[in-house]
């Protein structure tokens, strides 16, 4: 991804910012300006709590470019407490995760583009130790 593409995602990556539909009340992530539930315009910014559960996961041993240093790692489908499902890396894991495991969002390094490129930060999830209060 280009620098500008990363930059456009700062809000959702750093703060888990999505949208809330003012018509049907659905919480939406990632933000897409049209509600996937009722197809009405949805542009109200909504910041998610960061709490959720592991819906499913896999373990990556052969990592794509930019992520090699972190392998092996777990990638999970996270069901947020507010409803939406997203894909994210799990971090700070001792052993394998469990389906249904409560998790909380943390901001971590996603990847580093070589020695002179930008460092990309964003959301990951860890086993819920300190649920957002």
């Amino acid at each position: 991804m280009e620098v500008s593409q990363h930059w456009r995602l700062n809000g959702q990556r750093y703060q888990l910012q999505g949208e809330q539909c003012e018509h049907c009340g659905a919480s939406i992530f990632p933000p897409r300006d049209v509600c996937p539930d009722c197809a009405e315009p949805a542009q109200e910014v909504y910041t998610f709590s960061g709490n959720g559960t592991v819906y499913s996961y896999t373990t990556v041993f052969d990592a794509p470019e930019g992520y090699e240093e972190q392998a092996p790692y777990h990638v999970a489908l996270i069901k947020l407490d507010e409803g939406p499902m997203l894909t994210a890396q799990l971090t700070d894991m001792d052993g394998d995760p469990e389906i249904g495991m409560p998790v909380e969002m943390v901001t971590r390094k996603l990847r580093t583009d070589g020695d002179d490129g930008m460092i990309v930060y964003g959301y990951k999830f860890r086993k819920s130790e300190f649920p957002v209060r």
Partner: protein
Amino acid sequence: MNNGSQPKQEDSLLQRPLRDVGIVGYGAYLPRYRLPAEEVSRVWTGGQGGTPIQEKSVPGLDEDVVTMSIEAARNALARAQIDPTKIRAVWVGSESHPYAVKPTSTIVAEAIGAAPHTLAADWEFACKAGSEAMQAAIGFVGSGMANFALSIGMDTAQGRPGDALEYTAAAGGAAYLIGPGEQSLAIFEATYSFVTDTPDFWRRAHETYPSHGDRFTGEPAYFRHVVSAAERMLEELGAEPSDFQHAVFHQPNVKFPSRAAKMLGFQDEQIKVGLLAGRVGNVYAGSSLLGLSAVLDIAKPGDRIFMISYGSGAGSDAIVMRVTDQIVDRQNRAPKTEDYISRRSEIDYAVYSRFRGKLQTK
């Protein structure tokens, strides 16, 4: 002096704000990984000789000063419960900023929702960059230029393989949201700084690991600055060590702060809560700030706290504060320092080498 009473501000060696300023929220952060000092000893000295601490904290592969500062800042905000858009400065003190050019502080400000209407800057003064940022925040709020300023001391310290510092160079720190006295859980009485050009420890540009003057880091460096700053602060305040419930020192190991405390007349009981180096190592710019967060976690209204930082190169900041009634409600609003210390995964020297980028893979 002014007729023997309070000195006029322009004549005083102490720094005091124009209005009451204090800590509105605070938050600690420590990574979960721990390297026992015995592991370093096993690899480099065949297990012979003593170790300066029990174990040190080590950042995970996806952690750096940015990510650690964000979590500490979120904890500080959880305690303060203020709107982050009211923050007018985000200042991060560290000697491990991930970029040489590009501020840590703007990323932190964006992540906590303080951007864009805020100052943001990275501070550097070896291990006292965090306390210096706190003092600047006290001045910024105390002058009335802002109502809230966030100061952070955080590090992922570098230790050359096999060097004496490898036993202790650790990762962690704390964030302090500074604000008006009436909203504070602790109010600052005064700060005082003592600096000289003392070449005890440094890292040149583009170098991965720091250099130090071995035994020179003791008497002319740590002890001279810490003791001088503390003595002068006590003298100017007209206070005795026994006037304080807690004293927090910069802690490169356990021995130095313990000895400095004894030299000044503080008792073991006064430094016990804030002395964490034995279990987490030296978290550099986060060191005294993390000790302070451990003290605030258990402090009671009315407690008086004496904090003294040290940064190589060299200088010390002495900061004195008194805890208010508002501490009681805020202590449990975010994870405590002890929560982070007791959350631990032990690693060996091989995993540590990988986590800290000491292995050449291409």
